[in-house]
């Protein structure tokens, strides 16, 4: 239903509801417009001066139009009560419990996203603006016991798939807007406020990227050069089951022949991209490049990434990170 709209791939649980609602509204708009448009064009042709030299003082007598207007009003009411309000209520009221969710602080600044994980203890360490330095952009107080295990990153938001994510959004300076196009999430970050938002990623970034894959004809030298900026969405093995192109690798011109020898005529290749955090509110000259990375990982991959982050924590944690 939503396919007719050029929407980005969708990896969140609630995304489908929003997309379908979008589709329904656009169908309504299309029907209305075509209806009106048809009447419009027909009238123009039929009542042009040549064909109808003298106008009819009364014009249309029936009041069908008022019924149409009422119908439209009703439809809008349905959209409102049936879709819009419940959807919104679910977004802003039914937050999942903190225990069974990944809770993250995101602090926006010109022009980056600071990400703050509470770490193993699940408690965010104390932060203070007096501690803010270039290498401690969050002003995290490492001397605070709760802060010892806290993980901080810049522009890197990793979350495990299939588990609700709660983000406590705030900003250091001006208004930004935290936008995850592939998760149908958008929330302004308002200075002086912490605004929570939540979503449940149901697809990993890899899966989403795979969804963006398009088929490419393999025609020797005639192969579209576009292929060579794209990646494989799975291992491509030859007859001797030796892998020619590994999953995630960028295609190179010299794999074309081996692949064709291996009997491939057309292969799926995905853009070499990741899912993103975009800034949707004008926040200064760097607004256009205030881009972060959202990585929805499998449980294992997430755990691995976390472990790696932890290993990088300062061991003598009485001092703040140099």
């Amino acid at each position, binding site marked *: 239903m939503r396919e007719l709209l050029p*929407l*980005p791939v969708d990896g969140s649980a609630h995304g489908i509801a*929003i997309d379908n*609602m979008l589709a329904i509204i656009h169908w*309504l*708009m299309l029907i*209305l417009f075509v209806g009106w448009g048809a009447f*419009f064009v027909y*009238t*123009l042709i039929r*009542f042009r*001066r040549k064909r*109808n*030299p*003298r*106008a009819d*003082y009364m*014009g*249309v007598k029936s009041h069908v*139009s008022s019924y*149409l*207007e009422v119908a439209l009003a009703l439809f*809008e*009411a349905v*959209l*409102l009560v049936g*879709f*819009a*309000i419940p*959807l*919104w*209520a679910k977004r*802003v*009221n039914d937050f999942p419990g903190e225990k069974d969710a990944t809770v993250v602080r995101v602090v926006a600044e*010109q022009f980056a996203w600071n990400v703050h994980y509470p770490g193993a203890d699940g408690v965010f360490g104390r932060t203070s*603006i*007096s501690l803010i*330095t270039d290498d401690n952009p969050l002003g995290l107080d490492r001397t605070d016991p709760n802060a010892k295990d806290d993980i901080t990153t810049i522009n890197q938001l990793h979350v495990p798939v299939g588990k609700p994510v709660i983000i406590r959004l705030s900003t*250091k*300076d001006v*208004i930004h*807007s935290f936008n995850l*196009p592939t998760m149908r999430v*958008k*929330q*302004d970050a*308002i*200075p*002086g*406020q912490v*605004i929570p938002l939540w979503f449940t990623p149901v697809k990993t970034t890899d899966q989403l990227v795979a969804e963006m894959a398009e088929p490419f004809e393999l025609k020797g030298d005639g192969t579209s050069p576009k292929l060579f900026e794209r990646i494989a969405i799975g291992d491509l093995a030859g007859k001797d089951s030796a892998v020619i192109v590994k999953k995630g690798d960028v295609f190179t011109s010299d794999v074309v022949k081996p692949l064709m020898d291996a009997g491939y005529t057309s292969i799926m290749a995905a853009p070499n*991209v990741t899912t993103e955090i*975009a800034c*949707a509110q*004008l*926040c*200064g*000259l760097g607004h*256009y490049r205030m*881009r972060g990375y959202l990585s929805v990982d499998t449980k294992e991959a997430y755990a691995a990434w976390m472990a790696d982050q932890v290993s990088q924590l300062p061991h003598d944690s009485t001092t703040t990170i140099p």
Partner: protein
Amino acid sequence: MEGNHDHEHHLGFWRKYVFSQDHKVIGIQYGFTSLLFLLFGFTLMMVMRWQLAYPGQPIPIIGSWLGDDRAPQGIMLPEFYNQLGAMHGTIMVFLGIVPLAVGAFGNYVMPLQIGAPDMAFPKLNMMSYWVYFLGGVTMLSSFVMPGGAANSGWTSYPPLSDIATTGQTVWLCGMVFLITSSLLGSINFIVTIVQLRAKGLTFMRLPFFVWAQFVTSFLLLLAFPPLEAAGVLQLMDRLAGSSFFLPSGLVVTGQPLNVSGGGSPLLWQHLFWFLAHPEVYVLILPAMGIVAEIIANNTRKPLWGYKSMVYAAIFLGFMSFIVWAHHMFMTGMGTIISTFFQTTTMIISIPSVIILTALLISLWGGSIRFTTPMLFALAFLPMFGIGGLTGLPLGLSATDIPLHDTYYVIGHFHYVVAPGTIFALFAGIYHWFPKLTGRKMNEVLGRIHFFGSFVCMNAIFMPMFIVGLAGVSRRLWDGGAQYAHAQPVLHWNAFMSMGAWTLGLFQLPFIFNLFWSIWKGKKVEENHWQATTLEWATPTPPPHGNFLTVPEVYRPPYEYSVPGQKRDFIPQNQPMEA
């Protein structure tokens, strides 16, 4: 306040053409100034469109004139892009469309249509124009300020605007002038319409254009003051170091901001949108008025459902004061408040539908003449239709999540203001030109202008919906080139830019036509369009004081093709035959 212009019939050049108190002269002054601003605002955008189409590539020709603090080696800086964006929006809305739709058309046509000798307060009228002019000059001067013009968007959201360069202060001063001008103007309009209507011209006999101006004036009168207040508060923040819009604990580029804090950034948004939503109906109502006049005249039949149109316009005006926060859905609204504003937003779409439907149905049974003004007026309907319909998904908070602050919004409102309002204004110019000059504009050039503009407008704005649905943010210096999710639609940027530049070319026949026709246009008789409304009952061009004899009105505004009459139109001031 009253103007006693007893001896104005033999005035010197200055009092006659520059500091004139004649509503017609003032109307023309408004007209040319605003057209120039419209052209300027468009030019800014044509420059921006280069950067959007070919990010980071030197702008041909003008690139070298811009200077190193704007475009070193002709490559536009993000700072400058933001200045152009903010100024394009501001200029188009406050210095282009509104002065043209209200200041020019309202001033020139409305008093004539109600059979008034002039505006109720001619001196005030003159002041409104000159204060507007001052505001315009102030705005323009901001480009040469250190750090350039305002660069926080036409919405000027703090804290960004609070900490922005000097240009923002100039922007605020400019706005104060423009607001003052609009207030004076709107008072004048309302008093004129209420007090100076000709004998027999009851409210339900007013041409729809006058109704549109009437409602518009109320919007300006009551919605602008809060923005003026907000402007003063922001000036205080910037000049007196107060913290109306600055909460405590801000850290800008690593440095704690030393202000008292305790302010609220959302306060600005409420005050701004309290104006800015009614403002958008200020942009559309006069356009609807013009279109209504031209449709009635060129279908040679009365408007269908005139009364319902009038009530719809009034209701629209009223509702427009309580929908403003649909611009703020993403600021963290709870369910109750968002429900309230979604509901009012859905409600307000109905009167627009009623007006458009009435205009549409008015065509049925007509004897339609496809004159140039009529072409523009007709095109207005579907164009406004697209713009309006795309307002609906934006008006529902859930679907606004993916669409907010994307090019979808840009597409939405440009369809209503550009191929919508601008087309209506073009229509008005072609329609009333014979009234001003006694000559008519060239039809061939007119058609070239129309069809060219029509195609280009759609070429520019239709792709914006695609780009917007793909999730590309607005106000991006590189048009989204950075973002993965923008890649599939990126190629549209160049296409839209081509459209914009071609649109620019198609304005040349218009500009030429306009000036050429003033002196060389085909001479036409007094009531060239065989119209019924009072402005055509005056000599052309109307003398100072407008009417030779005090006009009296005997019938509704659009008595076209009355059965049993051999002429297919009866002027409003033609007495009933006993």
